[in-house]
């Protein structure tokens, strides 16, 4: 029987949740006995090769590409998990949410106290995905099945969640594993 597949992605995040994932240390050997990795920065597979059991989402959506990737994950994964503060609540990137987009760009590229930008341009290329009006938590864009809070969630939390789901058990995090920081 083929092993179930896991996919991961980092949207508007810092890859910290992926780092924490790698912090499961030697348990990763156990994990690869249980699963194959599909689309993920871990194995650098860029496109889904097939249906996945679990998709791990780090980060919320700050631009249109994040939305497309997240929708792609929803289409390919049976279970979608928001991993970490940014996916769940928008996190640090969402600090811009109460500020109009134009002001954010001006502050970031023109007005900010540490800006060095002699050409006084705001980057604008076809290849740059358009920013959204605000940062959206993942579950405000697609349906999310589970949430692993934390910044990042601890390796134990991620391990606990994955093994439970792979064994068909309900995901019920014990008190010490629910942390928002």
């Amino acid at each position, binding site marked *: 029987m083929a092993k179930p597949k896991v996919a991961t992605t980092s949207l508007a995040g810092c890859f910290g949740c992926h780092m924490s994932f790698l912090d499961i240390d030697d348990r990763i050997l156990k994990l690869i006995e249980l699963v194959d990795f599909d689309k993920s920065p871990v194995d650098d597979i860029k496109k889904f090769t097939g249906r996945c059991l679990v998709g791990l989402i780090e980060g919320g959506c700050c631009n*249109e590409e994040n939305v*497309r990737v997240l929708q792609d994950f*929803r289409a390919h994964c049976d279970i*979608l998990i928001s991993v970490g503060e940014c996916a769940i609540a928008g996190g640090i990137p969402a600090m811009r949410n109460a500020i*109009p*987009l134009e002001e954010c760009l001006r502050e970031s590229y023109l007005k900010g106290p540490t800006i060095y930008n002699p050409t006084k341009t705001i980057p604008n290329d076809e290849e740059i995905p*358009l920013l959204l*009006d605000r940062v959206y938590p993942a579950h405000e*864009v697609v*349906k999310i099945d589970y949430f692993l809070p934390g910044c990042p969630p601890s390796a134990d939390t991620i391990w606990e969640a994955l093994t439970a789901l792979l064994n068909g058990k309900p995901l019920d995090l014990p008190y010490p594993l629910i942390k928002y920081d």
Partner: protein
Amino acid sequence: MNKKLNAVIQGICAKVGKDRTRMVDVVRETQAALGCVSSEAMDLIARETGTHRVEVESVVTFYAFLSSTPKGKVVIRLCNDVVDRMQGMKRVAEAFEKALGIGFGQTTPDGAITLEYAPCIGMSDQAPAALVNDVVVTGLSSDSAREIVAALREHGDPSRLVRQLGDGNNAHPLVHAMVRNNLRACGPVIFAALEPGAALKSALAMTPQEVIRDVKTARLRGRGGAGFPTGMKWEFTRQAPGARRFVLCNADEGEPGTFKDRVILTECPDLLFEGMTVAGYAIGADTGIMYLRGEYAYLAPFLEDVLARRRAQNLLGAAILGKQGFNFDIRIQLGAGAYICGEETALISSCEGLRGDPKNRPPFPAQKGYLGFPTAVNNVETFCCAARILARGAGWFAEMGSKGSPGTKLLSVAGDCRSPGVYEVPFGISLAEFLAMAGAEDAAAVQVGGPSGQMVGPKDFGRTICYDDLATGGSVIVLGRGRDVLGVALEFLEFFVDESCGYCTPCRVGNVLLKERLQAILAGRGEPADLEYLQKLGETVKTASRCGLGQTSPNPVLTTLKNFRSEYEKRVAPRGDGLQPSFDLSAAVADAQIIAGRASVHAAR
């Protein structure tokens, strides 16, 4: 400038004896005199009244009619109540904007005129209507909006906008309003003649306990909507320990679609004041306060005049009608634009010069009310009923109406009906009978009891108006065919969001969440699960809120979910793509498309 400001503030504070419990009067007068209660003014008021500046700011920022930044000499407040919207408010709004060259919430550059919206100003039967400072203008059209602006530009005097006087006492020189009573059905309790003093004479011939007994025998219940037995309230107040006692009259009718108290205040203030005086005698109070909503400020000079006459007739003042030891007088406390102040403990807070936050109960006002003294708070109509009970007898009263709801009820009807106005009907009348009276036989939906009441459809028209079935403080809004009941429910929610005091979590936050979800559904971005979300959230707000506002604010959603469920169901399609229907990528990238000057690669998918 500072000296002048100082003198103005000192004068205003001196008028109320520098009493900080009269803060609402102080800041109202400051607003009227200076066009705002500026930061400097707050400091001076705090100094004069011996309080903290932030306490003044707390009051100023609570009431819609007060402002810390300058407003125009004339403020036009266009009523944006549901009924006004149904009757062409939008065209009037556009005409005002165009004629003034400003949007709502703005002031003309010359500082002459401010344009604002106001929630229901109690003129739903002559909508669209607006307040121009204290002057009411009714039956507005885009033409009359333009005329009003032109006239104000010319002379700047709102009182000169009244060209045609209304009927009855609306034409009284002290009222001088174009408001019409639209009194369509007079009953024996409220709208019957009363010889001033008649009820009081019969009360003073009895002991206070006997007066309370009579009110109990009549089984009078509060007319504001909640229906608490009035006699019992008076008895509790009388029995509660306290050095003083107070009678408070709730003339803050703010429930959208309610305007029956306005007609009482205009046409039978004696009956009302007599009822308050009877209550004063019954509970042993020496002071009554009538809390008059700021929207009805145009009635204040007339009511003051009635009070003065009653003092001259010894119907108020010391040893009333020769009864030694019975001293009672009434003052009018004007509100400043806050629906929540119709809640009895919020009303007390406002009378005490505070923000109109409701108070924790217990203690109840009967135990500890105004300034901590036992206080009976009743509705305008309730006092009128009490006076009539004393004049005509408890048995006479109790025979009218239905078993659990004796007497008559004033209903104010507006919306899609031929005869909007005020009706005095016996309790127990069926909604269908009443709709026939009002010329609304083919109504598609009726909001009974205002936004905090229930939205019912034709299958419920056989139900009766009474405390045990369709309870109402008096508002009946008729929606004809083609009206969007969910659109109306959304407007009601917006009203509650605006009018929540913000004290407790469920009301402050929950109503915003209800509103946003309903908005998404109406925008075609809902899904079937949203109905359960609304139901649960609505119930949470209802259960957990601290006062009557929050406990009823989800009713627009909960009663339409119950009675008009198909309206929801046809707007929410099940979908299996795992996407959130509420997320709108096109809208989310709209700003970026403009800034970057290119189209989204993904939004069109």
